[in-house]
């Protein structure tokens, strides 16, 4: 098993980040091109805790080197993600696991967004870790697959962060315009 970890800070409030997170893979994100679709499978609010639980299916398509394609034989893959938003504690926790080829490779990812304790109103911490385990009889092959996956995870994490920054920026702009538009409309109505 190999572990991939990454942390970063976004200069936006937890509310803004948690909202934009639902749009992380929209057209504004031109970097994470490996994610081709995101579908919501189920969604509910826990009546006791108020936690929003969402189950999503993420469709990915990414070119693989020939040696890996020979083993995996597919380019399109599916990931199941369960996320928990706690609006009181202000946490977003997302757990995901690959559905495709899980007899060969198991990838378990955890992502968390929490307000930065040093500046909770304006900054959000992002924590990501992935446990990657390849199965098979040959140690060298298992290691090669795990190393490749960690490397791929690293590249996708960098692109994901850049892409998400763009989404955050666009979201804020869109909301600002929407707010100003509403105010303008209201002023026009009263005028």
């Amino acid at each position, binding site marked *: 098993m190999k572990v991939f970890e990454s942390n970063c800070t976004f200069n936006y409030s937890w509310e803004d980040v948690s909202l934009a997170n639902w749009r992380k893979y*929209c057209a504004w994100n031109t970097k994470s091109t490996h994610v081709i679709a995101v*579908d919501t499978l189920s*969604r509910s*609010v826990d009546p006791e805790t108020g936690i929003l*639980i969402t189950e999503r*299916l993420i469709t990915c398509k990414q070119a693989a080197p020939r040696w890996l394609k020979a083993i995996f034989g597919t380019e399109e893959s599916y990931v199941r993600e369960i996320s928990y938003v706690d609006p009181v504690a202000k946490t977003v926790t997302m757990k995901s696991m690959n559905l495709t080829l*899980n007899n060969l490779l198991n990838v378990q990812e955890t992502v968390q967004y929490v307000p930065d304790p040093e500046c909770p109103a304006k900054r959000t911490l992002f924590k990501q870790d992935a446990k990657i385990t390849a199965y098979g009889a040959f140690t060298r092959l298992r290691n090669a697959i795990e190393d490749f996956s960690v490397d791929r995870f690293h590249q996708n994490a960098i692109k994901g962060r850049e892409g998400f920054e763009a989404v955050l920026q666009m979201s804020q702009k869109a909301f600002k315009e929407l707010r100003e538009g509403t105010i303008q409309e209201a002023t026009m109505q009263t005028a």
Partner: protein
Amino acid sequence: MSSSLAPECSEVKERYDQCFIKWYSEKYLRGEAKTDDCKKLFDIYKECLSKAMKAKGIDTMLAEARKNSKDLDMDIGQSR
């Protein structure tokens, strides 16, 4: 918003996603979510998606994953 794995569901998905984002930002984050405003739209989207997932064989894959990860899901759900 992002596309659906089934192009024929993209339009109904878009309508649901828009509704959800509005509900999430204007009600849920403010602690005012008393009702599920988007249920109707979700049901339409879900019906479309279920057909597509069945045709692609994703439904069985998903059922298996749900069965195997039940404990894990519950762990997180009760973490608070």
